[in-house]
């Protein structure tokens, strides 16, 4: 027998928690299935400097704890459990956590994205030289030879975290320019201790019990370099696996919403009269990094979470209390 709820939020990070704050304040008592990985990507970062309202910066995990507490303060019920199955075929949406079944008329999907791997065999050295969290692991690489792969803010943060422990940090990027924010680029490029290998890809890893060498390829050919540490920050893939066959995804498996893939020619009509965050299924809304094919910031995920909550509220009650 399904446990009936007003609205279910799947995912617990910037988008999901913000949606929960809005839904809870609209007295809709949301159930938030935050996942065992609650907090998402920000749990793997240190200082967040660009989230408005924190002039001195805030640690990623603390920002997540604050958002969660804020949602709970207004009555959101939040569980760190993984959803195992969904069924959006009927008017009443069904969501399972193992044997437990929940149902509701509206669902907000905000499961975020997961770190991408190189898939050149590096997985077998995870925890033995290969890391996806420099902030967590940098201290283990004191005076070691390390490489960071990537060109975004996360890669910059990783390189800067490592350089506090070792002078042997090299950034590897497959393109000839970085896509990180200017301020983060500047910090890395002006640091004489962090050389950059431009136009370079990591194509292999070798070692006995732990990482010993990486194989790289650039326009001049291939070569091997001794390496103790390899830190990956090469982007994310949307965590939409569980949604397959239930809602429309795009070619890159991002969740499609009316806002990101409008069918009607009059986009403004969607903003005025429709539900911009609605997915291909009526009553199912999407927000955050699993939807966002462009910005992917904590603040834009939070903003989209608020939009999805307002859309869900309007869908359920016919009105939106915040107007």
């Amino acid at each position, binding site marked *: 027998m399904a446990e009936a709820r007003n609205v279910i939020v799947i995912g617990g990070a910037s988008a999901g928690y913000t949606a929960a704050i809005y839904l809870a304040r609209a007295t809709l008592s949301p159930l938030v299935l935050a996942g*065992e*990985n*609650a*907090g998402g990507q*920000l*749990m*793997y*970062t*240190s200082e967040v400097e660009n989230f408005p309202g924190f002039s001195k910066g805030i*640690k*990623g*995990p603390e920002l997540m704890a604050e958002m969660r507490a804020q949602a709970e303060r207004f009555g959101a019920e939040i569980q*760190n459990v*993984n959803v195992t199955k969904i069924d959006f075929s009927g008017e009443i949406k069904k969501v399972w956590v193992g044997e437990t079944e929940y149902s509701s008329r509206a669902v907000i999907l905000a499961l975020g994205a997961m770190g991408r791997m190189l898939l050149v065999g590096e997985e077998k050295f*995870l*925890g*033995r*030289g290969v*890391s*996806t*969290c420099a*902030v*967590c*692991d940098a*201290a*283990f*690489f004191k005076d070691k030879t390390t490489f960071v792969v990537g060109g975004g803010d996360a890669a910059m943060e990783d390189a800067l975290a490592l350089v506090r422990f070792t002078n042997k940090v090299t950034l590897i990027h497959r393109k000839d320019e970085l896509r990180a924010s200017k301020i983060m680029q500047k910090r890395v490029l002006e640091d004489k201790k962090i050389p950059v290998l431009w136009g370079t890809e990591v194509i292999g890893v070798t070692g006995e*019990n*732990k990482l010993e060498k990486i194989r790289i390829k650039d326009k001049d050919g291939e070569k091997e370099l001794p390496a103790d*540490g390899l830190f990956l920050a090469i982007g994310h893939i949307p965590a939409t696996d569980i949604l397959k066959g239930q809602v429309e995804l795009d070619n890159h498996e991002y969740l499609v919403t009316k806002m990101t893939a409008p069918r009607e020619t009059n986009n403004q009509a969607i903003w005025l009269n429709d539900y911009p965050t609605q997915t291909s299924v009526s009553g199912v809304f999407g927000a955050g990094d699993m939807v966002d094919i462009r910005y992917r910031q904590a603040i834009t995920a939070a903003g989209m979470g608020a939009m999805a909550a307002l859309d869900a509220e309007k869908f359920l009650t016919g009105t939106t209390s915040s107007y």
Partner: protein
Amino acid sequence: MAAVHFSDADFEEKVLKSPLPVLVDFFADWCGPCRLAAPIIDELAGVYAGKVTIGKLNVDENQQTAAGYGVMSIPTVIMFKGGKEAERKVGFAGKGGYEEMIKKVTG
């Protein structure tokens, strides 16, 4: 029941010489995913009390033990049985992942 804390000083006596299997969570305060693991480790310590000893080791304060087991990434959770490493999980593995490790040694 919260998980116990191990240190370099008592690791041999409390972990390696323990009659029960011992699950050790290698963690640090600055590590975000370690914070995800912490409440799960505490919960499991209560559930499996008497069958498996479940504890934590702060890698900052106990670098000797962490280095001795080649811990280069946290959280790392290692199951010890009869003084030897039986299994390890690197990175946050979720409640299911840690329970699976425990069930393997409790049968």
